[in-house]
């Protein structure tokens, strides 16, 4: 009895007629029952009759008789003048050697506050999702307005050079826009690169490759996901390199192909843009302005990646490589060579 009375959680010990043998102080406190009112009295007589609930009575009777073993039972306790409490009831039949002396141990857990906090959390989560959607909608609208302004300005630009710069700026904005559209579609923070690069390259083809110019822009590899913050930089790098190839590698309606490829090895990745155009100019000054653009170099530095520009079998290949972990099969040596080449190029 002393054990029951000192229980920190509300606890009752009942006899075979559902009379109270002992009640914990925590039970009396929690449900506002006078200590004198409890021992010896029927459970049903407690308080203002709220413990007389037929479902509770039949549960306890069934547990006493051994007809049912009920681990948990949930009930709403409606105390006169008090708020409804949501209780979880555990009832355990205790059988002594004297079979007439059956006891029932009943423990109560008040789940009202936990349920309310769970509901508040659910409500907050729902509110956040609505807010996130609203923010994404606003970002989409803003990007659309910025892109439209650039496009209209390009349309009205008098010189071909200015028009070209404005169209490039439009493509850069659309690179971020394509990512935003993909993120809105999935609701995740990770980006599947193949889908993103395909959508990006489709858009670049539609707006930058003139009608009738037989140029293919294809995406290969890229079967992996990266964090949204990394993918926005990768998208801008791809945009920049593809625009460079479109501008310089295929003069006079020359036909050809530009391939964007991304490979993953654990945390390491490499991105390449290869064209089969006319190849790099021989004048080093032209290489720097034509290919090693400041945007690509800056973004690669931000991603802790290196940039390598080289002649492909036909045309030009640009590799951007991020080596977070040096692998044992010779890739480490390659990575060092790439860093050295990149430093040499930067110091020119």
């Amino acid at each position, binding site marked *: 009895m002393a054990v029951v009375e000192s229980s920190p959680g509300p606890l009752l010990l009942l006899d075979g007629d559902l009379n109270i043998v002992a009640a914990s102080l925590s039970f009396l406190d929690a449900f506002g029952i006078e200590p004198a009112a409890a021992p010896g009295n029927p459970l049903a007589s407690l308080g203002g009759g709220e413990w007389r609930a037929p479902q509770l009575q039949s549960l306890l009777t069934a547990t006493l008789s051994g007809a049912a073993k009920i681990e948990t039972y949930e009930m709403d306790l409606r105390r006169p003048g008090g708020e409804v409490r949501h209780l979880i009831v555990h009832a355990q039949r205790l059988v002594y050697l004297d079979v007439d002396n059956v006891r029932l141990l009943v423990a109560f857990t008040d789940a009202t506050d936990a349920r309310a906090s769970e509901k508040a959390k659910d409500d907050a989560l729902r509110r956040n999702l609505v807010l996130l959607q609203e923010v994404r909608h606003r970002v*989409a609208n803003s990007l*659309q307005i910025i*892109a*439209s302004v650039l496009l*209209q300005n390009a349309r009205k630009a008098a010189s071909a050079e200015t028009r070209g710069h404005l169209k490039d700026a439009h493509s850069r904005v659309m690179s971020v826009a*394509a990512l935003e559209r993909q993120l*809105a579609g999935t609701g995740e923070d990770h980006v599947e690169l193949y889908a993103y690069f395909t959508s990006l390259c489709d858009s670049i083809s539609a707006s930058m490759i003139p*009608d009738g110019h037989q140029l293919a822009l294809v995406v290969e590899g890229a079967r992996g996901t990266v964090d949204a913050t990394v993918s926005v930089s990768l998208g801008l790098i791809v945009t920049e390199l593809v625009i460079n190839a479109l501008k310089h590698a295929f003069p006079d309606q020359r036909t050809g192909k530009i391939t964007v490829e991304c490979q993953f090895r654990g945390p390491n990745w490499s991105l390449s843009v290869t064209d089969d155009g006319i190849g790099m100019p021989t004048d080093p000054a032209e290489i720097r302005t034509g290919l090693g653009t400041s945007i690509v170099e800056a973004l690669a530095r931000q991603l802790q990646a290196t940039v390598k520009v080289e002649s492909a079998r036909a045309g030009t290949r640009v590799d951007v490589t991020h080596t977070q972990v040096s692998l044992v099969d010779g890739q480490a040596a390659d990575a060092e060579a790439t860093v050295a080449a990149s430093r040499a190029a930067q110091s020119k």
Partner: protein
Amino acid sequence: MATNASDASRATLLIVEDEVLPAMALRDELEDAGYRVMDLTGRQAEALDAVRDCKPDLALVNIKLHGRDDGIALAESLTAQGIPVVFISGQTSRARSARTTAIGSLPKPYNAADMVLAVGYLLAHLKGDESQPRPAGLEVFDGEPDTAAA
């Protein structure tokens, strides 16, 4: 710019968009591609007035319109009059939930060049011609719940 002037064959389009700059950019791109674009509006009543005089082949409708006007309600009216609708809104989940009132959705932020391709694709699709590749970002609603493009 990829265009398909022969398919456009002076098809008439209605753009209902409350943001004037994207609407103008879209109009200019579509006109360059050979389409006839009706006067721009961002209001439901004006759009319904306009289609009384001239029935477009396709209506490009943003979901958020001027004031409290709603593009989905407008799309229902247009569809009831036999005018196919494509949503051009960043509210992708609302567009998807209203898939029975439109034939597709190209969500913001879209590339105007992609929209030109999407219009060509949808006009061909309406005629049963499925030979064109589906443009980037375009979702086509065919009444089936899972036909949306990724």
